[in-house]
């Protein structure tokens, strides 16, 4: 087919395609280089990093930076907390999303218009930070693990994506047929809708997981106890506030000097360590995220 109507490309087109390839290659370089630099630095010796000898590959490869991470207990409590918040938060969030989206997708559900407007309005208008904070406070959620899980569980954008998916991929006839076979609303959801919706559920789970793993705002305003801190808040101390505390470890002056060296490396290593979970999931995430964006872009 392609061959049959092949017309020789004029030279101007060849120039433009060359320009496009060069343009994309430069972009590729700009995006990838900082990432490679961070990873390489994390495996290099602190002397090589501070004197600027690391350009592409690790110089004088060591594990010092990672050893420093292992000796830093706050990172591990943060890691564990983040895992708890991510797992619980994502499951609850996706469950709520489906429970809202499924009735909304059903034409026989009379309150769907009212509910849809309520959702849209909540998406466009909010009470703002302080009233939100006061509500969490009056629910006695401040400084508890639930403050990291419940307030952000309902994501309106996800609901709209799920609703659109249910509407476009599960025909109404299917419901009528199931109803004739004696299937009620709950059974229809669990036996027919959910098994048919695995791809969108995967998308929603990944969305929720990534945003839970990366979120730090709720922790910043709702949490006081350090033992509840998620990883991102610990990272903020180390990377942004530059507070690498030595409180938890007693060090001799000699070790302290060594620790100062490790401090630089620690920053590079902690970036890599914090991003590993997302990195492992990345192949799936990318595929499903693209799908999700496409479902989201379908207009009614």
């Amino acid at each position, binding site marked *: 087919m392609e061959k049959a109507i092949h017309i020789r490309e004029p030279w101007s087109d060849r120039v433009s395609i060359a320009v496009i390839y060069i343009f994309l290659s430069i972009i*590729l370089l700009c995006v990838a280089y900082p990432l490679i630099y961070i990873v390489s630095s994390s495996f290099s010796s602190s002397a090589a990093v501070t004197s600027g000898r690391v350009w592409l590959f690790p110089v004088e490869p060591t594990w010092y930076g990672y050893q420093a991470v292992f000796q830093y207990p706050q990172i591990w409590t943060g890691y564990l907390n983040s895992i708890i918040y991510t797992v619980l938060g994502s499951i609850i969030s996706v469950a709520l999303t489906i429970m809202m989206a499924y009735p909304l997708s059903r034409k026989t559900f009379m309150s769907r218009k009212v*509910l849809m407007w309520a959702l849209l309005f909540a998406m466009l208008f*909010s009470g703002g930070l302080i009233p*939100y904070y006061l509500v969490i406070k009056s629910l006695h959620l401040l400084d508890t693990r639930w403050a990291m899980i419940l307030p952000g569980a309902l994501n309106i954008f996800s609901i709209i994506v799920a609703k659109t998916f249910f509407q476009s991929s599960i025909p109404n006839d299917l419901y009528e047929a199931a109803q004739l076979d004696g299937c009620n*609303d709950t059974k229809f959801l669990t036996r027919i809708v959910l098994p048919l919706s695995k791809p969108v559920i995967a998308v929603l789970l990944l969305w929720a997981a990534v945003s839970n793993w990366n979120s*730090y705002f709720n922790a910043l305003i709702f949490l006081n106890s350090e033992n509840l801190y998620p990883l991102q808040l610990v990272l903020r101390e180390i990377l942004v506030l530059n507070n690498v505390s030595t409180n938890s470890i007693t060090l001799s002056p000699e070790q302290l000097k060594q620790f100062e060296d490790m401090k630089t490396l620690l920053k590079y290593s902690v970036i890599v360590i*914090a991003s590993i979970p997302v990195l492992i999931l990345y192949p799936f995430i990318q595929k499903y995220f693209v799908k999700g964006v496409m479902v989201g872009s379908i207009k009614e």
Partner: protein
Amino acid sequence: MLFRTVSLWRKNIYRHWQLYCIVALPVLFLITFNYVPMFGIQIAFKEFNPMQGIWHSPWVGGKQFEMFFNSPYFWPIIQNTLLLSIYALCIGTPAAILLALAINEVKNQRFKKIVQMFTYAPYFISTVVLVGMINIILSPTTGLYGQLSHLFGVENVYDILGESKAFSSLYVWSGVWQETGYGAVIYLAALANVNPELYEASKIDGASRIQKIIHIDLPAIRPTIIVLLILAVGGLMSVGFEKVFLLQNMLNLSTSEVISTYVYKIGLVNTNYSFAVAVGLFNSVVGFILIFTTNVLARKYSDSSLF
């Protein structure tokens, strides 16, 4: 009439009581975390006293708003907020469109995949990590940027992180680095839907690649661009708290203080609730008006709108 609707509704609830049970829990969440806070807005018109609570604190009318409009911070933070979001919008949107158009031209599947994979990846980096990366790479003494400057013989390396003039560019271009790949996906999806016959016809008519992009590709993604622009204009007043807050330091505060960071500091750090709610409400209302007007304009002058 009313009676009929009510009875219809009652019948509907009776017949689909299971649907109503299923929806009850998420509706409870919606009410608790989205609608109950809206009642807290009245704090803006009161002198909030934590001992008396929201309901029993005395009314003071528009006092807080007057204070805000007359405060020396009013214009700077409005200016910073608008400057940051308009700058980000003007650079970010064309960047994503340009990337999508370029990727769409690539016929080599492998190269295409690699470009997409890498440009998409930074989106998954958390804001904290992104700002951490900026801090260590742009450090004038130990960072890559400092080393490069030394290599080119620069003596006094310009401190990007502590320079108030550089803040907006730092904010916008780090955003471009992080989000362009993700932003391009939605345009690519729209481009994938273009009828291939259009391309073939244009080829036979002797259109060049550039002409093809201008006359086929751009019109194809126009509705997507408009919808995303409406959303972006609606968000003009609410520059994301996270990145601005993390990139802020004492040295760049004059250009980096935006409404959301100001509300956080006034409200939660200084616990001046009423004033902070007034500032936040002003912000929400302006944002709401913006999104509504752009939507009306979009509906009037083009065939695509958000609602």
